[in-house]
């Protein structure tokens, strides 16, 4: 399946499975993504492989459930079972802002062009797609808006306030508009 990462089409090197038997075969071969259930049941065994690990969370699974284990994962995959199910947007922000997750944050499932900018703003940096055609459309959607009202988490896990409309307003005004700390006001959050 085509994968867009950091704005370009790349090859997907990760193996994905929800079966522990597969994990046993795949893990020695390369990076593997496991589901939360597999992780919970076979945590010790999986850790013993010492390979690169990713975690897949279903729409109803908050990252709070694995907060203490997140450092084991280079990648977290959040599933959009239906594009109208917006829970993963909150989960993405929690991962980036609350749990400080800095690895790859991948959207899978119904990942459509018109939701892309929301996903980017919530901290996703990789998108798994069904077809190459979809990938083209998705890449075209990245620049539809120059600026937004709300700050968004960057991959560093910190909020990026720089290009928000309120921050620009502050920048456009004179320096007395800045608050005492000298940072741009970020109320429109």
């Amino acid at each position, binding site marked *: 399946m085509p994968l867009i990462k950091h704005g370009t089409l790349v090859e997907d090197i990760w193996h994905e499975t929800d079966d522990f038997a597969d994990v046993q075969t795949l893990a020695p071969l390369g990076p593997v993504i496991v589901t939360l259930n597999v992780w919970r049941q076979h945590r010790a065994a999986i850790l013993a492989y010492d390979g690169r690990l990713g975690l897949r969370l279903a729409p109803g699974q908050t990252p709070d459930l694995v907060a203490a284990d997140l450092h084991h994962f280079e990648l977290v995959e959040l599933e959009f079972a239906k594009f109208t199910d917006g829970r993963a*947007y909150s989960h993405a922000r929690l991962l980036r802002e609350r749990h400080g997750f800095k690895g790859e944050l991948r959207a899978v499932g119904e990942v459509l062009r018109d939701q892309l900018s*929301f996903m980017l703003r919530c901290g996703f940096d990789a998108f798994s797609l069904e077809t190459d055609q979809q990938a083209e459309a998705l890449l075209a959607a990245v620049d539809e*808006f120059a600026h937004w009202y709300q700050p968004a988490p960057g991959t560093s896990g910190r909020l990026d306030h720089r290009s928000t*409309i309120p921050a620009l307003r502050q920048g456009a005004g004179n320096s007395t508009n800045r608050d005492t700390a000298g940072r741009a006001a*970020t109320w429109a*959050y």
Partner: protein
Amino acid sequence: MCRYDEFDHAFVAERVDQFRGQVARRVAGDLSEDEFKPLRLMNGLYLQLHAYMLRVAIPYGTLSATQMRMLAHIARTYDRGYGHFTTRQNIQYNWPALADVPDILDDLASVEMHAIQTSGNCIRNTTADPLAGVAADEIEDPRVYAEIIRQWSTLHPEFSFLPRKFKIAVTGAPNDRAVTRGHDIGLRMHRDLQGNPSFEVMVGGGQGRTPILAKTIRNFLPVEHLLSYLEAILRVYNQLGRRDNIYKARIKILVQSEGEAAFAEQVEAEWQQIHNNAPGALDLPEAERNRIAAYFAPHGYADLPKQSPILDAALDTDPAFAAWVESNVQGHKQPGYAIATISLKPHGGIPGDASAGQMDAVADLAERYGFDEIRITYKQNLVLPDVPKADLHTVWQELVDLGLGTANAGRISDIIACPGLDYCNLANARSIPIAQRISERFTDLQREREIGDLSLNISGCINACAHHHVANIGILGVDKKGVEYYQITLGGVADENAAIGAVIGPAFEEHQIADAVETIVDVYLNERETDERFIETYQRVGPQPFKEKLYATD
């Protein structure tokens, strides 16, 4: 009035371009209707019974004359010459062509208007007290906060695919004219113990098949924490709200199932986390609040005497005018000025409808007798907020010539009605013809005056868009084996003492409903003690006397 700056302009223009592309992809077949639906909904476009319907946001119900003229232009150019004002301070056009919609949005953007988030499962257009800035009882102008919420919620990346639609209402006064308890979040301003303005936060109100009044989860929220607190509520809801059943997806159901206290605790915990994570980053800096507040600064009012001899003389000599002043004119915080309600409820007319010509004429009046401002009310009427008392008579005479001078604001014929079966594909029954028929029974202004304050709302189905649950007399259209019936509820209240009405008995057939309303009014007039309003009498005597007369067997 709030003005767009370069950033708002650019943002809305980009939004229109984006939607133009989406419409083109839909027309070309690249987008399925399922994929297009949430996109068009977030731009205010519904598919109705006969055609598309476009709902345009009028943020916090405040319009300039130029904006009103643009609404008239759109009605004339792209629709059938009229528009429909709604309880949510929006305007709806019932007949736009899909291909025209991007052009309509362009026209709107040219006067700093849009249709963003007037539908869909997102944070909808924020409503506010229609008398904001001019009401005498106000602590602070709620539009400042409504505007801040508007910007914050616009294409919010986290909250654009909520379990269900989400409505926020704000009022800055103790007298609630924005039905705050009827919203997903209601914000009512109070002074805290130190005298600082703060918000009472109410969550989980709503109409529909499960009418619930919002519960207070925070008594005094300092205004600077407004957005972070909203973010906490929305985040809890976005994660835990039900997505498996559309009828149980509103936040009111979540508050109910979690329990009020437990829900409040979850919000509080989330809010604390947001704070610990980025201390202060979500606060509203005073400078930004002041920048927005400056847009809503009081107008340059003239120093007028409290009394106007011209007005007093007209009141003495023109009883029809005096009746209009009594029902449609309210006191202004500035001496010598008055707030005038323009009724969009002529007897026998369609509640909330205005023609392009009427919109243009009201825009003229707002320029000549005010500060270029018009308000849209929850009751589907218009307001001229700053009329010098000495000009009231002239204004009224012009309104009468326009067919807009009906003296019935707050009276029984000031009916809120939803579009019903005439337009809406969810409807069980017609609402507009019922409203027309009932209002025709009360054309005698003397009789309406005698009846006094009374709210009557009619919804065409259980979705309760006309808020019949919080009307003194609520009428709900139901379908019984293909026949339209109407169920009556009594005792609803929409103000700061909000209450849900109770069903009085079996539903009535269409031809019986106007008689039933008359019977209710007769019982009230019989039972009432001096100066009692309908609702006071009802609360004192209860449903029994009404039941007896309505369902008398002889």
